[in-house]
Every structure is written in C-alpha cells, then in structure tokens.
C-alpha cells in the first residue's frame, strides 16, 4: 500500500515518537521505583545492611562504563554529521564493546551472589528475613530488566552500525542514529539512579 503514498520523511515525527516511547520506558521503571520506595520505607535497616554486600567497586566501574559509552554514541552523531563515516562506526563499535563489558561485569557480579545462594526463591535467602528477600528481589528484577534493555539497545546499535556501513544512514538522514542514541542514553539514565539506590545506601 505504501507504494502509492508519497514518500516523504518527517524526522521530527520519528524523534517525537522516540521520546514518547522513552516516556513509556520511564514509567515502566517508574512502577519499580514505586515498589522500591515502599519497601525501602518499610525495611529501611535491612535494605541498608543488605546493600553493604554489593560491590561498590564493580558498581562504580559499570557506571563509568555506561557513561563513557553514552559519550561515544553521542559523539558518533557529531561524526556522522561531519560526514566522518569511519569515525562514527569506530565510536559505535566502541559503544557496543562497552555495553558488552557492562554485561560481563554484571554476569560476574550476579555469579558471586548465586554462589552465596542469594537469588530469588532461595531458601537460604529466605532465612535472612523479609527485608533481605525484598532487597535482593528488587535488585535482581531491576538490574535484570535494565540488563535486558542493554541487550535490546546493543542490538539496536548494531543494526544502526550496519546501516551506516551500507550508507543507509548518512549526514542528512541520521534520525535513526539519534533515536538509538536516545534509547541508549535512557538506559544510562536509569542506571544513574539504580546505582545509588542499590549500591550507595549503606
């Protein structure tokens, strides 16, 4: 059917659509922040103590990784607009590598917890009391959902990188790159809040 429609492009519409979608994502995590605030209020001490077991070091490293990756993808927009295709691809490749590094860190971090029998539904965790159960439940659910977003973001960026290589995204048609950037920044933005709420409330 689209053959008969006049092909015209509205970049601002795509970007508006992306922003509206990001609002949805914000509210999706927002629901979890509601749950977090209620249970933290009800189990303040337990949350406080449980948070001490998380590795602030890995958390900080991961925060910095995400911040750097946000910078690289933001820079790639500048690169593409300056018609520097090669540099843009390098920056996007860097973003993907950093995203993967984040996931690898996360994997080891979760692995440590699993070794200590801390995972949802674990009977050893249940013995430690309600506050710990809820803290780790939220921790795994929220960081897990965040990691899922990282994976989606990485796939999105990979597709964009290929489109750049195939010259589908160019210096005068780069709204998709911008949108993937927006998505990636949102994932970063959510991490900026997850980090203090889980690692720094000691």
């Amino acid at each position, binding site marked *: *059917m*689209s*053959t*008969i*429609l*006049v092909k015209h492009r*509205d970049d*601002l*519409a795509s970007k*508006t*659509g992306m922003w*509206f*979608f990001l*609002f*949805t*994502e914000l*509210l*999706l*995590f*927002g*629901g*979890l922040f*509601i*749950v977090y605030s*209620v*249970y933290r209020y*009800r*189990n303040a001490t337990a949350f406080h103590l449980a948070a001490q077991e998380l590795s602030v070091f890995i958390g900080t490293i991961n925060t910095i990784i995400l911040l750097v990756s946000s910078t690289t993808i933001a820079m790639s927009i500048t690169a593409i607009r300056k018609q520097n295709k090669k540099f843009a691809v390098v920056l996007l490749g860097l973003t993907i590598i950093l995203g993967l590094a984040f996931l690898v860190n996360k994997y080891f971090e979760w692995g440590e917890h699993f070794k200590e029998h801390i995972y*949802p*539904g674990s009977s050893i965790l*249940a013995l430690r*009391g*309600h*506050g710990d*159960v*809820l803290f780790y*439940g*939220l921790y*795994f*659910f929220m960081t897990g*959902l965040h990691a899922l977003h990282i994976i989606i973001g990485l796939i999105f960026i990979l597709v964009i990188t290929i489109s750049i290589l195939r010259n589908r995204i160019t210096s005068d048609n780069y709204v998709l790159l911008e949108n993937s950037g927006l998505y990636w920044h949102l994932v970063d933005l959510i991490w900026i809040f997850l980090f203090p709420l889980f690692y720094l409330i000691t």
Partner: protein
Amino acid sequence: MSTQKDIEEPSYLDYKGKYKGIFSWILSTDHKRIALLYLYSILAFFATGATIGLLMKFELIAPGKTIMTAQTYNAFFTLHGIIMIFAVVIPGLPAVFGNFLLPIMIGAKDVAFPRLNLLSWYFYVMGVSLVLISQFTGQGPPDTGWTFYAPYSFRTTGNMLPAVFGAFVLGFSSILTGLNFLVTIHRMRAPGMTWLKMPLFPWTLYATGWIQLLATPIIGITLLMIIAERTLHIGFFDPALGGDPILYQHLFWTYSHPAVYIMILPAMGAISEIIPTFSHKTLFGYNFMVASSLAIAFVGYFVWGHHMFTSGMSSTALYAFSLLTFLVAIPSAIKVFNWIATMHKGSIDLQTPFYWAMGFIFVFMIGGFSGLILGSLATDIHLHNTHFVLAHFHFIVFGGTGFAFFGAMHYWYPKITGKMYDSRWANIGLFLFLTGFLVLYGTMFYLGYEGMPRRYYDYDEIFHTGNIISTMGSWVLYSGLGIIIINLFASLKSGTKAPSNPWGGKTLEWSIPSPPPVENFKEIPVITKGPYSYK
C-alpha cells in the same frame, strides 16, 4: 475546504495494492484497512465476551447450580473480564474509529507510523490469542478475575502465565496505538488546523493517547512482577516473604483506573461529534470541552485508590482518594451540560446516531452518579464488591463506551462502508438494547444495595426475584444486539449508496467521498474555520 465530488481515485475498499485477497488486508498499512481489521476482531471478541456474559446471567437465574459449576463460573467471569476490558473496550473506540477517522479529521493521509500501526494490530491479536490459549492449556483456566489480585494470582493452579502475559502484550499494543496517535496529532494536522481548530474526537484521542502512554507501562511492569512471582517466587506481593498484596492493588489500579478514561474519553469525543451534527449547531463551549477532556485525563490518574477503600489503606489515603474522585466528576459534568446546551435551540434531526447519543447521556449519568455513591467512603463500605459495583461499572463501561461505540458505528457507517443502513431496524435494535440494558443492570443496583455480592455463582433465596428479572433483561439486550449487528451486516449488501455527507456534518471526513479514497484527500485541505461552523 475544497469539495472533492469527482471520484477518480479508487476507494480504500476497491484499491488493488501489492497483495491480493486476505493479504491485502493483513499486510496493509492503510489506517482505514487496519481500522477494519480491528473492527472485525473486536466484534468477534465482543461476541465471545457477550455470550459468556449471557451464560453467566443464565447461571444466576436460580440459586445453586443451574448450568455450570462454581469453578466454571469463576473461569467465565475471569475470561469475560479480560476479553471485555483488555480486548474490547480499551481498544474499541481508539483502535477502530480513531484509526479510521483521526487522520481524516485532521486532514492527513495516514497516521505518523503506518507500519507501527499494523504491528499494534498484530500485538493485539497475539495478546488475545495468549489469553485464549490459557483457557485450554495447563491445569485449568485462570480463575482470579480480570484483576489478577495478589496473592491468589500466584497461588492458584489455574493457568495464569499465558493470560497475564497476554494482557501484557495487549498493553503493548495499546501503548503503540497511543504513541502513534500522539505523534500524528502533533505533526500531521492540516495547514491552518491549529490546536483549537481540531475537532473534539481527535482531542479526546489526544488525551487518551497520553493516558495510554503513561499509565499502561505501570500495569506492564506489574504483570511482569506477577509473572516473576509465579516463576521465581521473588516475594514482591507475597506476605509470607514480606511483600504487600495491597501494593499490588495500588499498582494495578494506577493503570486500571486511568484505563477507564481510555475507554470513556474517546466515547465522549464521538458523542461530541454526533450531537452538533444532528443539532445543526456549533458545539457549545468548545474550549471547555477540550479543557475538560484534558482535565479528566489528568485527574483520572490520581483517583485509583477508590477501588481499594476496604483493602486496609491508611485513612489519610482514603480521604485523599475520595476527594480526588469527587473532583473528577466536575469535568465529566461540564461535558454533559455542554452537550445539552448544544441541543438547546438547535434544529434537531432525530436519526439513529442521535438516539444512541441520547442513550449514552442517559446511562452515563446513571453510571456517573452511582460512581459518586461508591466514591463516598461510608457508602462504599456497604456497597463494595456487591452487584451495585457491577451495575455501576457496566453502566459506565458498557453503557458509556458501548453506547458510544454503537453510536459511532451508526454515525460513521456510511463513511466507512459507503452504504446506508436500514434505520428502522437499527432503531428497533437500539430500543431493545436500551430496554434490556436497563432491566439487566438496573436491577443489579437493587440487588447490590440489598447485599448480593459479585463473583459468586450462587446466592441466597431472597435475591431470586431480582435475578430472574435481571437475567430476562440479558435476553432482551442480547436480542437487541443481534438485530443491530445483523442489520449492519445486511446493509452492507442491501443498503443504498451513501452520499459523501448524509448527515450534514461539518468536520473534514464529510468533505471526502464515502468510502474514502486510498489517500483520503486529493489535496490536503487548508483549514480556516473551527470544526463545527454552522452558520
């Protein structure tokens, strides 16, 4: 507004695209064809839900087991609720009439993201399929009610996962539709159509779009938490693990109350189109109508707690929610007053859509006022979870949205199909529908006030008479529904050809041929006047 009398372009129904047969529909990105895809799927699910409702009413004709066991009844009210709420009334007006008319009414050729639009329909079908799969697989169908209340929803042996995930997917479909409409309205209005020259139906879709966008994710995440709870035993809502089931109710209603406004706002928008057209008069208080739509959407976001007055919330929260609930009545009342004022001194043309609009106002008023009774803390203690609640929300959801849906159906039928329907049969159908409706649900107010609880397949002997009357009402309602739908389908063949503007409407959709050509407008119109410029 240029008139486009000469039909050279094929209509969207005749257009031969890349694909043939059924593929020209299920692969079409034309907003009009997608609207019809939604229409047919929604009608099918509506028929399913209505039949289940009919069977449940038949079960209640006598105390004790009549035709089904308690467990079947539980499964039935669950399925009835999920289908009717998530698959019929929430997408009903926006996905069918919004899709068909929004681009036309704002002078655009399609929605902003046509392929996303088609994807939303696929999500919709997937979601309903998952819900239906849950009925026939696993250890018995879900029996929690459409609200999936914790902790029962992760303790029951019923097959919850596909049903909950289905509702999640339906939410996704709803979000994408809302997003699409918002961007369409922001970016694609015809030149000269400033915000305040936009007709009311697009305006209500705009308000609805924001609710879809900002409320649906909350239930999305809540349903995911229920899934996690069932599979991983995280403990979010499990009192045995420190979770709080009332928090589930908070999150659930944070979406599901605004969802009521997803249902009713576009309904109000459709009524606001019908009434000026058949009164041949400008809509009274246009600015107030716009403002009240936005106010309903906004305030409606903060009243969710009135579903939980007896759940054990703190009394501060009770007072706050009761107050906010009363506030939301104000913009709704503004709308009713403005509709009446529009009719005042108009030259009223008594046609079927206008009767539906009248029916809408009548049942909506009853539903609205009974809502205030439930919104007061003291009376709610008595009426909570009784048939009174059942009657109230059927008056709003089925009475409000349903009447507006059929009103819109009869109003835009000539535009959509290019045929006129037999208005005599349509009126007979409406008369039976309204009579059956009032008998069926009106009696429930009385039953609930007397203390008959909802969601039981059995009841005390003292409620017997009321239930007999109510069940008989369901037969009248159902036959009225049958006549309406058969009439509409029969008119597809036998109806006379519809002119481009059969009712004398002033909005843009009446300026193009019926059925509309593929691209809607030959030339995008330039708007100079407000939407309802009579005289």
